[in-house]
């Protein structure tokens, strides 16, 4: 088995690491601009997370992904256990019981559950030796994902819960599934979503969805955030208002400026040019990731990479679309750019695992 060695550095996919690091630096600069009004300096903390993230990346890189997959059931089990724990002993952050930890150090189990679910899914689907999955196999894969979704939804954090579904969809698609098999599950899904909207949502969450349907109806509550975010993004125009010069960000019109709405700050201060540059960087990151999937040695390698990529990819799509007002507001951070410990670590972990798959692409070496 290939183990990391100096000669392997030549074959590291530097495009993936480089774009991740560049995005993190852009994130640091934007977070700095977004937090000048805050009395606490969050930069050292985020810098620390990136540093720890790099260490995690190196460790993940050095592990053989087959060994990681063998271990994935235990990871998944631990993840489920911590999600149950957080329901009872977690601290509330913005209405959801999602945070667990001692003192100011801790994390959100939901974030770590995401890659764990992706890994177990890859492990299960890698063993299938058929061209198309059977309905029972689709159902089994579905259960792997639905279990954590339900637990996260209980916190209640529907945004985070929804982020598991793209992993399922992407890996099923790659593993091979017939449309009619999927269609058979459609009534169940539709029934479930309707039930959640009417019985499972809090008023403010229903409000957010309704506000999305008719913006401007609630300027102080849910509508306020969308409206302010759009003003921030729009007023950036082509070239932006200049670093640290955005009135929307600096005058505190914008909510969650350094976390979920960090991209609105970037759009305001760097304009459409800045938006395109960052979206381009993301495209580059995912193109590199997809390249790893396409050269992977075996089915397991492909599925691991796709599961992890679909996770962060959907975060990118949802967050940017939400900031520009194309999707309802929910607490979804932007990979590498948003401030936050757990999510930063998970993104570096995923990058490390993908690099590891790439390193071990040659069958008989």
């Amino acid at each position, binding site marked *: 088995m290939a183990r990391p060695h100096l000669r392997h550095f030549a074959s590291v996919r530097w495009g993936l690491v480089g774009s991740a690091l560049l995005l993190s630096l852009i994130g640091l600069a934007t977070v700095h601009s977004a937090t000048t009004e805050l*009395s*606490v300096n969050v930069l050292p903390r985020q810098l620390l997370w990136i540093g720890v993230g790099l260490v995690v990346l190196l460790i993940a890189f050095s592990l053989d992904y087959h060994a990681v997959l063998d271990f994935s059931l235990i990871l998944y089990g631990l993840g489920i256990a911590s999600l149950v724990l957080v329901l009872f002993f977690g601290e509330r952050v913005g209405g959801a019981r999602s945070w667990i930890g001692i003192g100011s150090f801790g994390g959100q189990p939901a974030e770590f559950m995401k890659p764990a679910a992706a890994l177990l899914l890859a492990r299960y689907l890698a063993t299938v*030796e058929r*061209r198309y999955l059977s309905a029972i196999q689709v159902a089994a894969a579905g259960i792997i994902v639905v279990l954590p979704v339900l637990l996260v939804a209980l916190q209640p954090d529907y945004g985070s819960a929804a982020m598991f579904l793209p992993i399922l969809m*992407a890996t099923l*698609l*790659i*593993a*091979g599934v017939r449309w009619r098999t999927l269609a058979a599950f459609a009534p169940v899904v539709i029934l479930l979503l309707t039930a959640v909207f009417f019985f499972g949502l809090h008023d403010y969450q229903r409000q957010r969805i309704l506000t999305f349907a008719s913006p401007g109806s609630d*300027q*102080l509550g849910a509508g*306020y955030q969308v*409206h*302010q975010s*759009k*003003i*921030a*993004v*729009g*007023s*950036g*125009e*082509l070239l932006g208002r200049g670093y*640290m*010069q955005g*009135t*929307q960000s*600096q*005058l*505190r*019109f914008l909510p969650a400026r350094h976390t979920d709405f960090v991209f609105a700050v970037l*759009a305001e201060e760097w*304009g*459409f040019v800045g*938006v*395109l540059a960052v*979206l381009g960087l*993301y*495209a580059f990151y*995912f*193109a590199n990731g*997809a390249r790893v*999937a*396409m050269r992977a040695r*075996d*089915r397991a390698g*492909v599925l691991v990479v*796709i599961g992890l990529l*679909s996770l962060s*990819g959907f975060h990118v*799509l949802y967050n*940017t*679309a939400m900031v*520009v*007002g*194309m999707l309802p507001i929910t607490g979804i951070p932007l990979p590498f750019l948003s401030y936050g410990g757990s999510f930063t670590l998970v993104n570096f972990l995923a990058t490390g695992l993908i690099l590891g798959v790439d390193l071990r692409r040659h069958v008989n070496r």
Partner: protein
Amino acid sequence: MNVREHLDDLLRRVRLLLGLFYLLLVVIASGFWFVQIAQGTYYRELAENNRLRKRPIRAPRGLIWDRNGRLLVENIPSYGLLVDRSRSADIAASLAFAATVLQRPTTELAATLERSRNQPAFKPVPLAGDLTLADVARFQVENLEHPEFEIAVRHLRLYRHGNQTAHALGYLGEVSEAELADGNQHFSAGDLVGRKGIEHTYDTQLRGTDGERVVVVDSRGKPLDERDQRPAQPGASLKVSIDLDLQQTAQRLIGDRVGVVLALEPKSGEILALVSSPSYNPNLFARRMGSRQWRDLIADPNHPLHNRAVQSGYSPGSVFKMVLATAGLTEHVIDESDRVFCRGADRLYNRRFRCWKSAGHGWVNLRGALKYSCDIYFYHLGQKLGIDRIADYARRFGLGRTTGVDLGGEKSGLVPDPNWSRRVRKQPWYPGETISVAIGQGPLVTTPIQIAAMVAGFANGGWLPTPHLVLDSGASPTKATIGPQAIGVDPKTLEVVREALWAVVNEVGGTGQNAFLPQVQIAGKTGTVQVVTQKTWTKNKDLPLELRDHAWFVSFAPADDPELVIVVFLEHGGAGSEAAAPVAKGLYEHYFRTRRFSEVALGG
């Protein structure tokens, strides 16, 4: 074999998925193009001109009333001048204009502006405070010429009686960086929070909750339209136990002397007067205090900001003999008729201990010893009791721990014993120290509020009340208070001590005769604390001020059914009998005159 074929299938689908991702990115990018380029001008204009602004609605802070419904603290509006530098064509000209209107030097305004150097140019920053209504009108008239100026209204705390109530009520200060960083409290920069006294202890209740409104403002920052509003919830008003008349009389009686006057009800623990002298003017804190005024306050050798009633520890002196007498009787070490011969000095543990009266008191029993405050009697009693039992009784009367009064920064004082000596002082306990502690000297340290609670315990017949200032506050106070505590002494024993204290004031030769009033029976105990050990009896008047004795007078009245406890402490005030007792007498005179008057008026 077909595994490879399947893998090729997989790769085709990966390409498909990547294509889908690209497609969605392009859709999102076109969304940004639509908002930033197609509608960019519109949104830029929204951001620039018709901005929605969230404006806080400040919750008015709760008022504070005295026990008779007289207003002690209120809120008055104050106008501040802000400048938006981005709207000024020539900032020097703007400053010059403001300086002419306000008749203040341009340099002063420039210096204030310099402090906000790091703020973005479009953010209005403070330029001056305390504008008169005429100034405000002038800036509004000139709004077209000088759109860069804005007027901000805020509410200032006005303490109606200034330094007379300062130590009880406290003052407000701007929230600190550390408090802003604390996630449990929802402060924003510039908020005012209680810093001392009632304002501090009951800050949460007094503060209320700020509201918020969303207003549409034009490019001049003038509100055009109000969109939505969440009203402010005003802070709760508080009624305090202070009796303003009594408080002012106490302040007047102590004058410019340094010390404490405390008056409280022995049964309820309600504090009617709390004076710590010197005091300060809390209204100075409401406005931005000049650095010289602040330096003067801090540099004052008498520390006016220090609340001596709760934050300073002193030896109790002869006042402590009340505790010793109770201990002696309860432990059956002495009985009421036991006598000791005082010849002015005595040898104990091979050291000479002097009585304050060099000629001696002759034969004295317990009553006489308290009445004349004979030291020799209590030296012997102290020796018989031993330090451990003395310390036990001191603690029973609440010494050595905080009383739980609803004022911040309370000190716990110190009740010394051999254990403490070994642990903290790292040296053995000397038997001679027991003799010093027996007359309230030595390492024993008490605060005036502890002494007041202790005297209340004697007066009410056996339990320690928790002294407090706020009546019916509704919600629980910020600081947890302690409930009344039983002392655990036979009421008959306390009766014996109370009778002797009556003699102190009302019989010929008693040390407290200067407090005698014909219309009401006062009981009391004097205390004179030596600041330096004297080899000879020097007259206090001949000593420099900082070496003179501290004077105590503790008391309650009427002696048979006490309604009021008064504790007077004068730092370097001289003898308790001469300096402190007359202050208490004056206060009782006032209290019972008004009390009798209202009883007559009510009874018809």
